[in-house]
């Protein structure tokens, strides 16, 4: 990132283009359809990350219109709009659902029988939302719809756009998990960045999808155990489903602090990318 200026210094066309052809094969087939577009507008388009190599090739073959080309910045459009919308709707919803959920849990803070009732956790009121059980339920019953809608929309978008390939944890990522964890937790050497997300990130993000699915499905059972008796059966009945629902929340609670710490550590440009979609000077080449 510090070498931004150094990079830009060499950005007159002759020097800029030679590294490009090596990078081209990765995305060349997708790029063909928009190859005829003008380089300037391509740079401005949302889909431009697929087309930039072609843009550069075209640019290099054109006669140099501007002798003094302005400095260029390396950037990647990492987060398409649907991802950013669902991320923030989800962040707000999770905040409301967890805090109101803790308030609901306070009404019966146990997973055992009502008689005798053993208090498992005394959650401070200050961490909760809604004021009382009924108020918390209102928040929960309102934001469960936002959470569900954004979750379903997110999954549909990921699958249909193919964007999930950037973040889905697959068996191929397993060997990369330990080196990354060693770097973060035990000051090990930093493995080179190979893509938008490292294997540990993929594992974390893919897990949150599982937590989301679990909290939604168990939530349906807790809300309508009689109508969805088959789903209740799948989770071991109403009583046990309450435990699963709580466990899903614990999963989110394990994820969120680590996620926030990483956001702080990686700085403002990284944070902005979840707002604007654009990441300035990403670590990875490609």
């Amino acid at each position: 990132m510090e070498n931004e200026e150094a990079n830009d210094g060499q950005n007159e066309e002759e020097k800029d283009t030679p590294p490009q052809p090596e990078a081209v094969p990765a995305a060349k087939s997708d790029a063909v359809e928009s190859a005829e577009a003008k380089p300037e507008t391509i740079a401005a388009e949302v889909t431009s990350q697929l087309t930039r190599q072609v843009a550069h090739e075209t640019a290099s073959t054109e006669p140099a219109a501007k002798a003094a080309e302005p400095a260029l910045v390396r950037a990647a459009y990492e987060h398409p709009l649907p991802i950013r919308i669902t991320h923030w709707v989800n962040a707000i919803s999770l905040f409301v659902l967890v805090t109101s959920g803790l308030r609901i849990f306070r009404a019966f803070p146990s997973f055992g029988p009502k008689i005798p009732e053993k208090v498992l956790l005394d959650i401070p009121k200050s961490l909760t939302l809604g004021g009382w059980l009924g108020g918390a339920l209102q928040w929960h019953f309102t934001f469960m719809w936002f959470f569900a809608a954004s979750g379903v929309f997110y999954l549909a978008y990921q699958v249909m756009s193919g964007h999930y390939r950037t973040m889905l944890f697959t068996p191929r990522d397993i060997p990369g998990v330990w080196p990354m964890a060693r770097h973060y937790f035990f000051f090990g050497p930093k493995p080179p960045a190979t893509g938008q997300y490292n294997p540990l990130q993929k594992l974390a993000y893919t897990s949150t999808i599982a937590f989301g699915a679990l909290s939604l499905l168990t939530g349906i059972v807790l809300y309508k155990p009689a109508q969805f008796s088959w789903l209740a059966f799948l989770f071991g009945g109403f009583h046990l489903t309450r435990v699963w629902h709580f466990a899903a929340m614990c999963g989110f609670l394990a994820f969120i602090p680590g996620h926030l710490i990483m956001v702080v550590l990686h700085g403002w440009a990284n944070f902005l990318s979840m707002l604007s979609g654009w990441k300035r000077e990403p670590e990875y080449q490609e």
Partner: protein
Amino acid sequence: MITRLEDKDLKRQSRRQLLKLAPVAALGIFAFPKVSDRLVAAGVRFSDWASGALFRSQHLAQTFSNSEVVPFAKFPYNGYDVLNPEVDLERWTLTVEGDVQHPGEYTLTQVRALPKINQNTRHICVEGWDVVGSFGGTRISDFLTLVGANTGARFLEVECADDYYESIDMASALHPQSLLCYEMYGQPLDRKHGAPLRLQMPTKLGYKQAKYLDTVRVTNVLKPGKTGYWEDQGYSWFGGL
């Protein structure tokens, strides 16, 4: 997926993309208590509407064998105010009003004369606890037939000896497991469980199962702010499971 952009283009792009997120900021309106009170009330109304739409009138809630029922001593007593409103069981009658052909006073003997249902079902409290109990009584639908109720009406309202009150949708009232319950664990209801007669509906949360019934009314209109003791304070009106 690296693009090389002029700094000003990247900034312009980022601004444009950022603005597209503006609608999400609308959720920030929930941060204002005066607004959020109304919005979450609307959220609950929407949930209730969805609950009504999801309700399957003939789909039975799970039933349990006698060995799965919790002992009587572990079935909690729950009440909002007094557990024993001192109902005069000798002279008790159930007042039937509203959209019915035969309004008037009905005795427990008349209720008991209708076909009896015994069921072991799960009682779920809005607080989160649940118990499997054993209940006996007559179907609300059979009683409504006896009194000549217009089952095309929308609601069943009940009033109780302890000033508790409730209302339920007609579809739930007519559900085959919805009972006017006069027995638990094979014994007449004890006073703290709602003697002599209570509602028992395994498709509804506990707070809908009004005890010490006093009056039943068939109606198409619920008075705002008088739909149920807890509902008027913010619980979901449908309260369905």
